C-alpha cells in the first residue's frame, strides 16, 4: 500500500461530471457528481448525528456505483459497523472489504472498498518514527511521559493526527477517493485549525524561551520574571521535564512544521470537499450551519449537507392530522363499528373499549410525531447555507450495522 506511485490515471468506468469550473445552481448537484470529481471527502458536523455511518455509506456507494478504489477512514465506529467493514481488531492498517461481503448485501461493486480505523496513539508513534533523526531520539521521545500524555490524552492531538493520516494516505497510496470521518471535537472547527496550531506550536518563540534556561542556564533580564512565576507555579522540576521533552522534539521541528503546512494546504485544495452532516434538531443544526458558514469563509469547499434521521413525509400531511383528530373524537363509535371485523380474527380482539384505547393511542402518537416533523421542516427551510447538494435521509426504523444497511442509507444520500 505504501509505494509512491503518484496519482494513477483516472479509471475509465466512473461517471464523471464536467469540469469544476461549471457552477451548478444551489441544491442542484448530486452526491454522485461530487464523489466522482473529488479525491477527498471530509465528513464533519456535530456529535451524535450519524457522521461515521454517513461517511461509510458514502464510501460504500462510491465503490458500488463508480469503478473507483475507495478508502473510508473512520474514527470511532460502533462495534457492529466496524464488524461490517471488517475492521474488528485491524485498526490503523488499511484493509479491503471483500466482494463476498457485498454479494451478501445484494450488490455488486464496480470498484473496491477499503477501510481503516484511526488509532491516535499508533499514528503518533508512526509520525515520530518518520520524523526522528536517529534511533536514540526516537526511543527517548516514545518513552517520555509528556509525549505519552500528548499522544494519548491531549484532545487536540486527535484532530491533528486525523488530518495528518489523511495526508499520508493521500500522498502515498493510490485511492481514487478517500472518505474521512472526523473525531468528535469540542468545536467542529478544531480539526481545521489543528495543522496550523501544530505548526504554531512547534515554531513558537515561547518554546525556545522555555528551553533556553535549561540548556544554557542563562536567563536574561527580559525573561526572568516569566521564569520566576512559572517556577513558583509549576515547580522547577516540572519545567525541567517539559524542557527536556521539547529539546528532544527540537530535532523534528522543521519536519513537523513543514508537514503541518502541507496538511493545511491539502484541506484547502480543490480536490478536497467537505460534507456537513446534521439532524434537523435545533441545536445540532445551528452548529452544523455555523460550521458550513466557516467553511465558506475559509474558502474551503462545502460540497454537501446531509440531513440525517428525518421523520417521514407522511407525518406532515394535513389530511393525516384531521384523520387522527377524528379517530380520537369518535374512538368509541369507530371501535363499535370495527369490532366485528376484529372479532373475526380472534373474539378477544373485539372488545370495544380496548379498540377505542388503541385508536386513541394511535391517533395521539401521530399527532405527537407530527409536531416534531413540522418543526423539522421549519428548521430545514430556515437553513441559511444551501450547498450544491442537500441530501435528506429518512429515519430508519432499525440501526444500521451491516453493508446492506449502508447501501440502503447510501442510496438515500445518492438520489
Amino acid at each position, binding site marked *: 500500500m505504501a509505494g509512491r506511485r503518484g496519482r494513477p490515471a483516472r479509471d475509465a468506468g466512473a461517471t464523471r461530471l464536467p469540469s469544476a469550473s461549471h457552477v451548478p445552481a444551489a441544491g442542484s448537484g448530486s452526491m454522485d457528481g461530487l464523489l466522482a470529481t473529488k479525491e477527498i471527502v471530509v465528513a464533519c458536523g*456535530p*456529535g*451524535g448525528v450519524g457522521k461515521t455511518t454517513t461517511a461509510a455509506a458514502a464510501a460504500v456507494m462510491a465503490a458500488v456505483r463508480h469503478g473507483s478504489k475507495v478508502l473510508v477512514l473512520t474514527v470511532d465506529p*460502533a*462495534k457492529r459497523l466496524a464488524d461490517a467493514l471488517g475492521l474488528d481488531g485491524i485498526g490503523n492498517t488499511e484493509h479491503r472489504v471483500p466482494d463476498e461481503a457485498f454479494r451478501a448485501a445484494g450488490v455488486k461493486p464496480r470498484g473496491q472498498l477499503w477501510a481503516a480505523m484511526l488509532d491516535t496513539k499508533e499514528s503518533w508513534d508512526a509520525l515520530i518514527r518518520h520524523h526522528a533523526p536517529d534511533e536514540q531520539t526516537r526511543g527517548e521521545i516514545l518513552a517520555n511521559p509528556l509525549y505519552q*500524555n*500528548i499522544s494519548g*490524552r*491531549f*484532545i487536540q492531538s486527535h484532530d491533528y493526527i486525523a488530518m495528518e493520516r489523511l495526508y499520508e494516505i493521500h500522498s502515498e497510496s493510490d485511492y481514487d477517493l478517500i472518505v474521512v470521518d472526523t473525531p*468528535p471535537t*469540542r*468545536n467542529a472547527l478544531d480539526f481545521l485549525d489543528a495543522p496550523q496550531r501544530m505548526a504554531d506550536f512547534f515554531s513558537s518563540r*515561547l518554546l525556545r*524561551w*522555555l528551553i533556553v534556561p535549561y540548556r544554557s542556564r542563562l536567563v536574561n533580564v527580559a525573561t526572568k520574571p*516569566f521564569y520566576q*512565576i512559572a*517556577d*513558583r*507555579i*509549576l*515547580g*522547577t*522540576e*516540572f519545567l525541567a*521535564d*517539559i524542557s527536556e521533552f*521539547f529539546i528532544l522534539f527540537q530535532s523534528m521541528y522543521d519536519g513537523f512544521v513543514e508537514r503541518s503546512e502541507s496538511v493545511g494546504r491539502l484541506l484547502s485544495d480543490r480536490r478536497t470537499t467537505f460534507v456537513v452532516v446534521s439532524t434537523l434538531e435545533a*441545536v*445540532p443544526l445551528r452548529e452544523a450551519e455555523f460550521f458550513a458558514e466557516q467553511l465558506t469563509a475559509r474558502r474551503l469547499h462545502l460540497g454537501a449537507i446531509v440531513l440525517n434521521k428525518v421523520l*417521514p413525509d*407522511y*407525518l406532515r*400531511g394535513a*389530511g*393525516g392530522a384531521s*384523520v*387522527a383528530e*377524528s*379517530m380520537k373524537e369518535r374512538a368509541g363509535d*369507530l371501535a363499535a*363499528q*370495527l369490532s366485528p*371485523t*376484529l372479532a373475526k380474527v*380472534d373474539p378477544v380482539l373485539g372488545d370495544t373499549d*380496548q*379498540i377505542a384505547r*388503541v*385508536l386513541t*393511542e394511535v391517533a395521539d*402518537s*401521530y399527532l405527537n*410525531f*407530527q*409536531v416534531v416533523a413540522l*418543526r423539522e421542516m421549519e428548521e430545514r427551510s430556515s437553513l441559511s447555507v444551501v450547498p450544491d447538494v442537500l441530501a435528506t435521509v429518512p*429515519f430508519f*426504523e432499525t440501526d444500521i450495522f451491516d453493508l446492506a444497511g449502508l447501501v440502503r442509507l447510501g442510496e438515500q444520500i445518492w438520489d
Partner: protein
Amino acid sequence: MTALLDLKLVFVTGKGGVGKTTVASAMALLATLQGKRVLICEVDAKGDVAGFYEAPPTVFKEREVLPGLFAMTMDTEASLREYLKLQLRIPVVGRIGPLAKAFDFVATAAPGVREILTVGKLCYEVRERNYDLVVVDAPASGHIVGQLAAPQAINNLVKVGLIRTQTDWMLDILSDPTLTGLVAVCTPEEMPVTETIELADRVRKETTVKLSAVVVNRVLPELFGRQEEEVFDVLGSAEALGRLNELVGADAGPVLDAARLAVTMRRTRSTHLDRLRLSIGGATPMLYLPYLFTRSHGLRTTRQVAASLGEELGY
C-alpha cells in the same frame, strides 16, 4: 447514598447530541425550585445554557439568570487570573498576555494543567460554600475523564511548587461521594449506550469521582399493552384498514404507519436499554426522561424536563 440534589458539585456528561446540556440545565432549575442557591457552569463553551433559560449569553462572571440560579461559562484565562490572585496571591494587573501564552503552551504539553483550572474554579466555589449546588455542563464523555483525573495527574507530574499544594484539597472534594458526583446522560441508542458503559468503567478505574446516576433521555412512551398490540396489528390488515378508511372518510394508513414507526423505534431502543441496565443498572441509579414532542427548545422545555427529573427523583 447522598441524594443527587444534596451533593455540592455535580458534573453532567454524555456523548454529543444526547441532551447533556438539557439535563444539566433542568437539574440546576429543579434544585433552584427546591429552594437551593445554584450555579450552573458551562465548560464546553458553546453558549447553549443561556438558550435553555432564555437568558443573555453567559460569561465567566456568574450572573443570576432566574431567582437563585446563577450561570457562568468557563474561561481558562480568566480562571488563571482569578486563581493567581486568590490562591497564589500573585496579583496580575491588566492583561496577562505573555503569561497566558506561556501557560497555554505548558498546558498543551502537559494535559491536566488546563483542566485543573476548570476543576479548581469549581472546587473553589464548593469550598467557599458560595452555592448549595454547583452543576457543571461538563465536556462530552470522551473528555470528561481527563478533566476529573486532572488533579491526580498533576499530583503525579508536578512534584513541588504551588500548583502541587493546590491539588490536595481539590482531590478531597472530588473524592468525597457526599460532595461530588458525576451524572452520565445517554439516549437508548447503540453508540450512546456503548459510550456510557465504557465511561462508567473508565470513571471507576481512572478517577476518584463517583458515578451518581445515569439519565436515559428521550425514552419513547409504550403505546400498547400486549393484547392492544395485537389489536393494532389486526387494524393494519387490509380488511380492517379498509373499513376504518370508510368510517373516517379518508386514508388512515399514514396514522397507523406513524404508530408502527413509534412501536419499532421503541423496540429497537429497548434492546439498547436492556444492555445498559444489565451493565450498570445494578450499581448506579437510572433515571428516565421521556421523549419530548415539543415545538421548540427554551425555558418551557427546560421546565418540562425539570419536572420529569423531579418525578424520577421522587420530589
